[in-house]
């Protein structure tokens, strides 16, 4: 015959009616009193995350497919060729703009040099090379040479002006060399 455990009869509130003493009974008590709420809370969080993961995974997969399809489209030979071609043209147009705006035009400088020579000096030889100018003149009098020399030396566009004068039988030979100041780009 089963006999129910006899519960102590007491009205002592400081001593609980039933208080287990072994560890397994305490663990069971804890699980039923506190642990269940913790577990439920964790299960709720995990379940929520599990469901949201379905949604996120779907979104992730859709995006992957979309990106892959676009990459495949761009990997097409025609598209690849066009990409390179357009890039080249764009760079070329930038280059053209650079040389159009960045380089100095020398025809105007040469024009000023030749037109700046007074009529009393006859050009025997002229050479303009990357801003370096060399003239060989003949003249009948020294005044014209002196005037031209001082005109060149006072012009801020020219520097390092040098004149070499030699006298022939009837004419005076003059070699003038100088440089053009190059403007900064």
């Amino acid at each position, binding site marked *: 015959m089963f006999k129910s455990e006899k519960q102590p009869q007491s009205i002592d509130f400081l001593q609980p009616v039933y208080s287990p003493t072994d560890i397994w009974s305490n663990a069971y008590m804890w699980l039923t009193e506190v642990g269940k709420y913790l577990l439920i809370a964790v299960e709720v969080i995990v379940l929520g995350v599990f469901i949201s993961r379905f949604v996120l995974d779907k979104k992730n997969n859709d995006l992957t497919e979309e990106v892959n399809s676009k990459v495949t489209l761009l990997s097409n030979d025609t598209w690849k060729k066009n990409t390179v071609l357009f890039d080249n043209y764009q760079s070329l147009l930038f280059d053209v703009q650079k*040389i159009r705006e960045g380089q100095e035009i020398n025809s105007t400088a040469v024009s000023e040099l030749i037109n700046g020579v007074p009529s009393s000096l*006859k050009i025997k030889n002229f050479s303009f090379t990357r801003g370096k100018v060399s003239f060989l003149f003949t003249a009948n009098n020294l005044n014209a040479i002196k005037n031209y020399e001082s005109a060149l030396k006072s012009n801020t566009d020219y520097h390092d002006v040098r004149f070499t004068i030699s006298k022939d039988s009837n004419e005076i030979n003059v070699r003038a060399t100088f440089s053009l100041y190059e403007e900064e*780009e």
Partner: protein
Amino acid sequence: MEKKGLNTTEYIKIIKESPEKKKGYAFAIVTVVVAIALVVLAIRPTILTISRINKEIKEKERIDTALTQKISTLTELDKQYTEQKANFTSLKLIYPANANFSLLLANIESVVSRNGYALGSVGFDKYDKNENYKISAKYLVPWSLRVTVKGRVVNLINLLKDFEGMPMYPVVESVSYSSQVDKAGLTTFGINMRIYQIENSNFYE
């Protein structure tokens, strides 16, 4: 046996050392430990996973936007290129990619004769870069063009201006002449110009 009566001090002692209080402490410690274990072992990994997937999604969205932008730009450029194809084709002649300066030569001949000069010789050579050349272009590389022409000094400036006015943007780098004339009374001029070409032969393909 006579039951001994309890005084206040003993009651307080009973309360302080009550097994219920000990059980309460034990429950609290176990609860904290289990909570930490659940946070570390269950919640943290799931949050990390979600955050990783979110990062992946953000990255893929960024890539997707960039790719969409690229496709739309290329489509637009393709449309513009088709409309302006004739102009772009002329760029091949102006800045040749295979040293084929046929348009330049045709233009030079035309400019020279228009200014009353006769073309003596034309030669191309590698450009010797100097301190005055400061342009840093990505594809256009300078090339040297040497031209000798016969004519009169009076037309020289117009000839040089016309040379520099050609669509290839050439620059006259050197000019030389002497007062010596031939039987027809014409002077020989040596003109050196900087022109441009593209070294990559597949540039336009």
